[in-house]
């Protein structure tokens, strides 16, 4: 093997990747999302999905839910780096497979379908809290809330029935029972 032609060290072994959900409470001020997103891109971390909205109108606090993947050390770094940002109040971290946490994503599907097909669509979506938001003779807009994988599968199934447009949110999360994130 040739010698390394670099003044930097060669990469070491990479550990096993884990998927985590990070919930971040931030001041809802100009540029705060750019700070979070810039931290991830600048340090080479990965954002799978992101959901942001103000949850406290009086104190102007936004709650950001980030789905990310990394080795345990990388996840730890992400948390510590997030906590260093001035507008960040707290960070909660959960494994994707944690049984005590609820996750939901919302999706809107627009499908070209006559009334017969529309019944079929409703049936397919039945398990995922379907709401018909708009209906015409040749189309329907349907809203579902589900897990990421379920929505992926639904999209595949609806493709055969004339799906022409999908709009999806990132995941949001909440703990089960009476306790809250801390």
């Amino acid at each position: 093997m040739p010698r390394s032609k670099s003044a930097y060290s060669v990469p070491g072994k990479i550990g096993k990747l884990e998927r985590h959900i990070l919930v971040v409470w931030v001041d809802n001020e100009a540029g705060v999302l750019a700070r979070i997103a810039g931290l991830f891109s600048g340090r080479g971390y990965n954002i799978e999905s992101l959901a942001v909205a103000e949850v406290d109108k009086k104190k102007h606090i936004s709650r950001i839910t980030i789905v990310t993947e990394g080795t345990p050390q990388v996840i730890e770094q992400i948390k510590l780096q997030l906590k260093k940002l001035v507008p960040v109040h707290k960070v909660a971290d959960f494994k994707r497979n944690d049984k005590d946490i609820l996750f939901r994503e919302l999706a809107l599907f627009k499908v070209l379908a006559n009334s017969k097909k529309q019944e079929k669509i409703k049936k397919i979506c039945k398990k995922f809290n379907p709401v018909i938001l708009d209906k015409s003779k040749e189309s329907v807009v349907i809203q579902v809330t589900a897990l990421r994988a379920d929505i992926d599968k639904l999209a595949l199934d609806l493709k055969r029935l004339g799906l022409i447009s999908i709009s999806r949110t990132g995941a949001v999360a909440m703990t089960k029972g009476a306790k809250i994130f801390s």
Partner: protein
Amino acid sequence: MSKLITGAEIVFKALEDQKVEYIFGYPGGAVLPIYDELKNHKSVKHILARHEQGAGHAAEGYARSSGKPGVLLVTSGPGATNAVTALTDAYMDSVPLVCISGQVPTHLIGTDAFQECDTTGITRPCTKHNWLVKDVNDLSRILHLAFEVATTGRPGPVLVDIPKDIQFKKGKYKFVKNILRKKLNGKATYKLSNKDLDKFIELIKKSSKPIFYTGGGVINSGPEASKYLRELVSLTGFPITSTLQGLGAYPGDDPQFLGMLGMHGTFEANNAMHDCDLMINIGARFDDRITGKVDEFSPKSKKIHVDIDPSSIGKNIKVDLAIVSDVTELLKGLIKRFKEKNKNFLNSNKQKTSKWWEQIDKWREKKSLNFINSDKIIKPQHAVQRLYELTKDNDTFITTEVGQHQMWAAQHYKFNKPNRWMTSGGLGTMGYGLPAAIGVQIAHPGKLVVDIAGEASVLMTMQEMSTAVQYKLPIKIFILNNEYMGMVRQWQELLHEKNYSESYTAALPDFVKLAESYGCVGIRAKTPDELDEKIKEMINVQRPVIFDCVVDKSENCFPMIPSGKPHNQMILGPEEEEEISDEGKILV
């Protein structure tokens, strides 16, 4: 009701309340209201640089040598972008800087106005935090918060972007303190636990091959930290090594000091790091120039890491005991607890570490910093050694540029006090040393300030000589002139089959004449016989000096850990290069 004053006045009121004595800057359209206000505030003196990068490094030199935050004032657009290198440098080396930048008026933001740029966007990744002020009534709070963010926790740069209309607008001024602490609800402060201290002491007592590995955190924690570090090191009798940024926290000529560690560190320091059974990291960050190959870094040791920045712990190297704390506080607590329970530790423990010291002495016998001197041509290491011998009795402040000369300065100049050594480590910014020396001299009038420089680096910010002359700052620019970008040439020699691609600088200026044209003093030394006399001449001149020290063009910086190697496989000198290159083939 408090009086309404303009944004520009608020800026100066805040600077006065923060006890700022000097600001470094360069005027321009979008900061003119602030510059106009300058005349009304005699306690704040402005130092006019020749380029915003120079102003930034000067503010860094001021901050690092004085322990106070450096303040920088620049205009919008190019003023702000020119300051980015200095901000990034300060971010990497944890230097507290407050940069105030002008911005185009609020109503023009986003229209690609003249000298407009997205300053907060550009500086977001190279500051601890930044603000665009959109309401004059937020200005005083933001400015005081800016000082607080810059100087607390791990220090670093911040930027406040103030549109021109806000500088004119009238608003209320209020001096607010401890905003961060209130807001974060105590999150930023960590309390030392006795449990951690006891664990720390347990590890110290169990160890038979210990080493202290200390860094810039000790310096940043203030002069008291160095005092306590010296006490702890003498209490334990353990060997100590330091990173580039930590030099001066522990006396460089003390027998317990093994010299600097890392890529160009001493043989004894690096081998001791590799073979130790206990590594006590105080205020260092396991930088890649220190660790070499991470997988083979100090494989047999327990590691303690003390750092004020929680994200520095466990980032590169896993540790056994992590303590988030200010260094002074930790050392104070540790020494007190250690003394209570371990009277006479030094003598009772001598036996346990005696073998370790014997081993260290064997490594020391290699004399890894030795070089083959010449009586015909000045060797750069010899020049630094002579500079040290002739300046060590003064309280000398040294800055450097980046490259071979920087490493030779770190190896051969021995520092005995903190805040005497200012060098760009993390970012490795060529052109840092000259403007930094200006800032140091501002903070320490009457002291000897020397920039140990390379001719390539120093040309990057040479224009700042004009600043030095304007403010009568007698800085000494000591150029080790080998006509090459020496470190680039060295890597090309070792890694790229001596293909010296673009690392030779043809058409260099005559530095003596250049000095004269700036209105300062030029001195040239060509042979070893005249070196001492010329250095003395430099020290005795009470004006800025450019010293052109003509050195061996082909000298390389050793010892060296080649890329991707662990600490115990250093190249000691040119005669060893061939042997290692064969071994390297197996390793990478």
